[in-house]
């Protein structure tokens, strides 16, 4: 560092950067003994220079009621805000299993999830899944305790890039695939579903016709809001 005394604007800059509060003209002049103290006009000129130096930078000089302060420009504010993010933790295996069970077996209760997983499901997991908007309560099973019935949401489908649950591999496919490739040909899966439905439907043949006529006038309201 050279031995020249630092330029006035750089003293001001340093002061504003450490002060932790806005500094007015008097506070800035107070940094100097009377003998060396710059004129107010010099101080103003130095502040103007400083403001110019900050053009195109991530910070700017701002004059507020209580004085001058240096602040982060809006243009970098959002990026810099990331410093204050809480680092997300990875979801636990238990959470993923629970989510998958809800997806494949919905609607079902927590007790039913626990039956399949063989271990209890923490309230935290259910809360996280609901906070995340992937799972919601769609009703209650009419048994003692009236447990909530959980189902996946449209957000769940959106997040995983699915148009519908049918795009998930069937259980049979899941069993066979060693390492699941998400880009598997889902068309085959859809066909399998369609066939299953058709079979089911054929068995209930009679009922189907009458319903068809009934369903004209109302849009299906059930999709999640």
């Amino acid at each position: 560092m050279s031995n020249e005394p630092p330029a006035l604007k750089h003293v001001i800059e340093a002061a504003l950067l450490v002060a932790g509060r806005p500094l007015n003209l008097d506070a800035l002049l107070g940094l100097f003994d009377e003998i060396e103290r710059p004129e107010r006009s010099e101080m103003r000129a130095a502040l103007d220079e400083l403001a110019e130096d900050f053009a195109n930078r991530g910070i700017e000089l701002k004059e507020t009621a209580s004085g001058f302060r240096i602040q982060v420009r809006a243009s970098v504010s959002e990026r810099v805000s990331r410093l204050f993010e809480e680092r997300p933790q990875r979801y636990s295996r238990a959470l993923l299993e629970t989510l998958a069970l809800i997806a494949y077996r919905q609607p079902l209760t927590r007790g039913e999830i626990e039956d399949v997983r063989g271990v209890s499901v923490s309230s935290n997991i259910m809360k996280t899944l609901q906070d995340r908007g992937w799972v919601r309560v769609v009703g209650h099973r009419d048994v003692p305790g009236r447990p909530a019935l959980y189902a996946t949401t449209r957000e769940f489908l959106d997040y995983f890039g699915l148009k519908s649950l049918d795009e998930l591999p069937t259980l049979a496919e899941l069993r066979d695939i060693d390492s699941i490739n998400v880009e598997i040909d889902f068309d085959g899966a859809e066909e399998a579903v369609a066939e299953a439905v058709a079979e089911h439907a054929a068995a209930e043949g009679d009922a189907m016709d009458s319903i068809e006529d009934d369903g004209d006038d109302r849009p299906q309201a059930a999709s999640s809001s």
Partner: protein
Amino acid sequence: MTEPAPENTTPEQAEMPFAVVQGAPVLQLPRDLYIPPDALEVFLEAFEGPLDLLLYLIKRQNLDVLDIPIAEITRQYMEYIDLMKDLRLELAAEYLVMAAMLAEIKSRMLLPRPVESEDEDDPRAELVRRLQEYERYKQAAEDIDALERLERDVLVTQVDFSERKIVRTVAEVTLQEMLIAFKEVLAHAEKYAHHQVEAEPLSLRQRMSDVLAAVRENEYRPFTSLFNAEEGRMGVVVTFLALLELIRESLIEIVQSEPYAPIHVKARAGRVTEDEEDSDEQ
């Protein structure tokens, strides 16, 4: 570090010239400066113990730590000890232990020494080792003190950023991860025969959820309103199957007041719980 106050003569050895003439020690010792008693107290308290005091005595006379004139140094050391006693300064035990050590070295120095003396035979060796060891850390402390440090020498900048956006991030997960997790549940579940997870059309499950979400327990909903013709025949079938499954699982009730009257659907569940209200907001 501060410049020593003139009359205090604080023992800052670092400020003393250091010019040892090896083999030709300066025997002409400078006379002790007269120190007023009150200043002496401050002076003595400035020492960090007997090693520090000894180092001061040695350095003050431009002597090398490696070649201490023990008799002379011991005499001076004892003078200070006596002074401290006279002034009734609280004298740490360490000072007296050192006095004893010096006296012992002095007496051993008077004994004739073999010509080929090993250094461990030099009665001063242990003292020299300790003095050097202490001196290097005393110096290190001064060096550390001289480092540019926060608050005293440099100030950390901190720009207020209270207007920052609070960004809440959530963990990310891939479909693949979820499916792998699920596959393991299945493997686990299959060990228990009574928990067979069957293959069934997922669209049916989804539709069941949708229907269940759409019906209320204390509100009869027209049966037909649950169907959407735009979905075509297949969609309608799926909805119907979902309704049948929901009835089978006793999740909904179908009500018809009289034959051919409109059919209504309501949830079997009783009151709407808070859970439900919450989830409905999404």
